[in-house]
């Protein structure tokens, strides 16, 4: 198999696989009723996945070779705090970005 063919195989398999994962429940279950205990778990999907996704990126940023970085840590705290207090995603993003650049400059 040539290198180009191999890459095509990877692209197509990843495309089909990613779509399969995204379609898994939407496609198979559709509008059938799900039991209450399943729904109860699903209500927490977002808060159970996103913080876990972010935590290692905050604590061990690749840009610093995995070393905890005060500028990034404080930016993360500011973003989370502003988002929690104001419930405003945009305000949180801009405060976090401002904290990051201030931190990189001064810390």
């Amino acid at each position, binding site marked *: 198999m040539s290198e180009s063919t191999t890459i095509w195989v990877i692209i197509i398999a990843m495309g089909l696989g990613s779509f399969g994962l995204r379609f898994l429940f939407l496609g198979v279950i559709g509008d059938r009723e799900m039991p209450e205990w399943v729904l109860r778990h699903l209500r927490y999907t977002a808060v159970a996945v996103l913080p876990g*996704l972010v935590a*290692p990126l905050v604590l061990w940023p690749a840009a610093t070779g995995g070393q905890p970085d005060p500028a990034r840590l404080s930016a993360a705290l500011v973003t989370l705090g502003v988002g929690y207090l104001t419930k405003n995603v945009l305000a949180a993003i801009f405060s976090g970005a401002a904290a990051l650049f201030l931190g990189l400059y001064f810390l």
Partner: protein
Amino acid sequence: MASYWDRSNFWRGFRDGLPFVLVVGPFGMLFGVVATEAGLPLVQVMSFSIVVIAGAAQFTALQLMADNAPTLVVIASALAVNLRMAMYSASMTPHLGALPAWRRALVAYSLVDQSYALSVMEYEKRPEMTLAQKTSYFAGAIAPVLPNWYLATLVGALVGQSIPDSFALDFAVPITFLAMIGPMLRTKAHVAAAVVSVICALLFAFLPWNLGLIVAGIAGMMTGAFVELRTENKDMA
């Protein structure tokens, strides 16, 4: 044919999705640059971003390909990074599962971190939304993001030189996710789920194929459900 078009919800979704252009832009561009530098021709770089639309998985694949990992390992690892999409799909099903199959397929194709997080936040905030309103909001939220993901990849592939490190673009992704997590922490159950998720993700970060995140996700969901049930019982007592 039923109509799923609701103008005001589409545009509200669009407005909420717009800031994420600032994130997908640099991220997509970075992928274009790195993939081109790794020697992929333009058509393959673009196919990656159009067929897969998952930055983290795409970077994983590139990295492993550069390390000459066996093809099967590349595919399996990159898909493992995307396992969280199956959780998103399950979480969207009570809201959008009643759509016709081809529309559900479209939703599935465009189910990414941003469109998922925005929509689930909106659906929880306004439980009275109809199917048409929910569908239009989702479509609106993804509308500014997806084209810019393709476009940014193209620009990155064509420009082909690194973005200066001083922009600290690596942190654009964590910041937008953190900004979305803040408003989601509405109850004790949500906070507990998030805390357990963080602890587990850090504890199990050593697991291969990003499986630590899946452990964190399942543990977090169980925690949320458990605390919710306990709070309810206490209220009834």
